[in-house]
């Protein structure tokens, strides 16, 4: 029986991080995961929209849950921020019957939908480790990524009840996954630290320092490559790398890639991109 999920691609895979979408589908095909794209799903809010109006974000996400529920599917996303935000709202709704009833009445009035609470939200990482299994992934590897790889989780999905059987504070799923695709996992402390995504445009100096320190920690521990489980963090650590480097006055060049890219390359897809990556690691690397 193939695994089936309703697919939420995250907030920026249609724009700033198209490589996530490019590489997600080949992985799903290789592993026999059947993805039903939620074409009507909105942004999860990324912890930003709820600052303006928490109930608005709850209602929009309840709509997404209701759509998945009507398909009889759980939601899967490759973005840690989306997994975290959706799970936070899911827990809020399930834990408060009065609130759920109020939001359902708005959903019914505006969309004709009702959410009954029968949906779970998973991050791709937890599906890979808990549902697919590392042994099966090892069998699929064609191009072992034999680099020193630092796995970045971010804080959003590292909350109780949101990260499968992994430890909230001292996780190991990414490290196990890196090993299974032939990489050498780096032990580092900042892997669950925030790089300040929701504050990027408003608190840029702080965010750049946060981002630079996370990257530096990985580099100091010998990483040649950082792989991120979060679309947004991945984008910030990548795009703002030069600017962050100037703030801390230290070179912090290091290739950043998303989890989906790592698995995709290891499975033998997008070989030219893997070639680019190998070149960059040898030229730019640490």
């Amino acid at each position, binding site marked *: 029986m193939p695994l089936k999920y309703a697919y939420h691609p995250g907030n920026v895979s249609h724009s700033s991080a198209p*490589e996530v979408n490019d590489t997600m589908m080949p992985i799903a095909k290789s592993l026999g995961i059947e993805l039903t794209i939620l074409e009507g799903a909105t942004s999860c809010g990324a912890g930003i929209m709820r600052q303006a109006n928490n109930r608005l974000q709850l209602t*929009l996400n309840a709509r997404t849950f209701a759509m998945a529920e009507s398909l009889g599917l759980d939601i899967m996303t490759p973005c840690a921020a989306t997994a975290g935000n959706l799970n936070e709202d899911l827990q809020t709704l399930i834990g408060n019957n009065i609130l759920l009833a109020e939001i359902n009445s*708005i959903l019914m009035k*505006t969309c004709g939908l009702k959410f009954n609470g029968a949906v779970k939200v998973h991050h791709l990482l937890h599906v890979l480790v808990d549902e697919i299994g590392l042994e099966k992934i090892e069998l699929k590897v064609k191009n072992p990524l034999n680099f020193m790889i630092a796995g970045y989780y971010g804080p959003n999905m590292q909350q109780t009840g949101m990260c499968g059987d992994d430890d909230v504070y001292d996780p190991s799923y990414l490290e196990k996954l890196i090993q299974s695709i032939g990489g050498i996992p780096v032990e580092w*402390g900042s892997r669950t630290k*925030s790089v300040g995504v929701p*504050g990027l*445009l*408003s608190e840029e100096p702080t965010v750049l320092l946060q981002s630079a320190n996370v990257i530096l920690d990985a580099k100091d521990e010998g990483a040649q490559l950082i792989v991120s489980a979060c679309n947004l963090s991945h984008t910030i650590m990548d795009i703002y790398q030069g600017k962050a480097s100037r703030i801390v006055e230290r070179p912090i060049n290091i290739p950043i890639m998303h989890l989906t890219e790592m698995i995709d390359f290891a499975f033998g897809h997008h070989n030219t991109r893997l070639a680019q990556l190998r070149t960059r690691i040898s030229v730019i690397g640490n």
Partner: protein
Amino acid sequence: MSDARSLLILYGSQSGNSEEIAINAGKFSSKNNLNPIVRAMDEVTVPDIISQTRILICCSTWGDGEQPDNAEDLWEAVNSADITSLNNINFSVLALGDSSYDLYCESGKEWDNWFESKGANRIYPRVDCDVDFEEPAKLWMEQSILKMSEITVDSGVEITIPENKISKNSDVIDNSVSEKLDVLTSDNIEDFLHEGDRELAVLFGSQSGNSEDLASKIVKEATKYGLNGKVYDMDGLDFNTLRNHKRVLIVCSTWGEGEMPDNAEELWKSASDDAAPKFNKTNYSVLSLGDSSYELFCQSGKDWDIRFDELGANRLVTRVDCDVDYEALATEWTFNALTSMAAVDETGNFHESKLNSIKQFVSGADTVGASGDDSFSISSLISEKLQVEVSIFRYDPQTNSTGKDTWLCSLPGNMSVLEVLRSIKSTHDGTLTFRDGVTDDPNTAISINGRLILPGTISLDSIYSPQIGKLKLTIEPLPCFTVIRDLLVDTWALERARETSEPWMISATREGKNTSQGTIGIMSQSEASYLHSIKDFQSSILLHASSDATPFSESYVGPSNIVSAWARRNDSRISKTKKNEIDKYIGSIQGINSETDLSSIRRQESNNLSISDALLDARTMALSQSSFSGRHGKHVWWYTWSIKSSGKVNDTVLFRQVLGPLGLLSNLFSGVTARMLLGFTRTGGNMINDGLGMVLPPAGIGKMPKQFNSSINNHHEVIAIFNELDGRF
């Protein structure tokens, strides 16, 4: 002079301070199941010391580092005596002195060094007190006595310290230490628990049936301890035959005004008789049930306890008096009582030395707690030993060197992390620096494996994962403070920030309410609950450290100050002026908008969810009051607006609207735009994702890979939801 629970407390005193502390220590140790012997140093001899297993020393220093008058003779005697080893003695020293003298606390130090040189086991590090000695002396007294109470006579701690491996070329020191507790093997204890007469009499005196139920459950549980329990209704029981029992447990409720329950009255008459027989061979304990709303609370149980004592029976476990919610206390008493009863042999002698072994044996049994429909189970208070690798961050300010020390230990799972630190400090490295305190002292906060905690509240087995096997503890100082030494951080900046937040209430003039206590101001229950919930954080430094933004933002006052201000702001008693001041403070440049990511606070289990919800509410208020102005307001506004527009984020619009032309220009020259476009390090497909972005409006220079969003399916539903809930967008 010594028995299995005795504690010798010696004082060497000139002014009387040491004597006062020793007397208080005696009182406190009595409460902790120890038999204290408080003596001046001129009242004991060297053999008195040698025969002890537990000794506390309180000693002042006189003149130029001299022993006080009443300690001089003993000090000379111990130094001239031929003593080779005191490795059976557990000790701790409190030194009193005056730091204005060169040889500060010298006498105490001498006693401390002497015991150490003779191989005695320092169970708690020496504390040197200056003239303001009260607080440190109290802490020493409590902690050292608690340690003493945990020691059983034949279970001292044996420690072996392999050769230290110190790398001269690095800052990393690797110590390997194994710590063993001397316990009987499980085979021996199993034999002991099944040899000879193992009968246990459980008597109940019951009016409502609770005592009877408990007695039945205790008997059921007793089988795990190798005991053959039998329930006896007090009604009809011959008191004279009871003296033949070696093990007796009494569960008795109290009726009316301190009276025996009906079924216990006759037996009590027999017991109270002057001609009642002696119970010299009987070991007993009493569980007393009652209702504290009555004046003579648990009186019947107290009567039985006193009477058995008068008749010469041996009280093994202190009586426990239970109120109407008796389950938890009864469970704990049952565990202790059955363990002690199990340590009574067939001749009626009690073997205290076997208690730990019995606890371990029982906790290792296949089933924990009685099974069945009664949902009654015994808490597992003692955990098995765990193999623990403890790595502690070290920083030496004198050499400005940092590193990590690692110890390999075998430790009981119920040991708290704070106790682990104390143990390492007292037995292996006295230079280890951390904040010590009572169990939930908010200033003790540290980081363990990325989890921010109060170390006294976390036991090893609560963070142990059986799948991994060995437990690895990485202990570090809180992340956002300057480290003074090792795990000790400087919280001064936070205190200064709190000071500048003017953390006080200015109340509005308001009408009071007439109550039976007079005219007082009142608050609704829901408001009080809300205010309590958002102020219910374990530690302000811990909450401060849980924000990943605080280490990198100099102006940010941090979440603990914000949430405290938010609580005051929402207190209905506050004046309008003060409320406005707090609103300005929260919305200022140092306020909530400086927090870059609330999820880092929300994920720490030590912070309840009400706190992160309150911070979110504070931010929503600040945004609303500023009409979404400034970069932060624009960010939130345009993010939300773009979702209404298409259902997806439009980062092109977002960058352009928030950063403005100058910001976009800055990104162009800083390389940000180039990386967006070219995928400089990112492994994107197209080198130029969308060349149109460079030239066509509206994105202009800040073009993100995709300029226009296609709308999601059924986009009209999103607009309808927006219109329903928030007409501002």
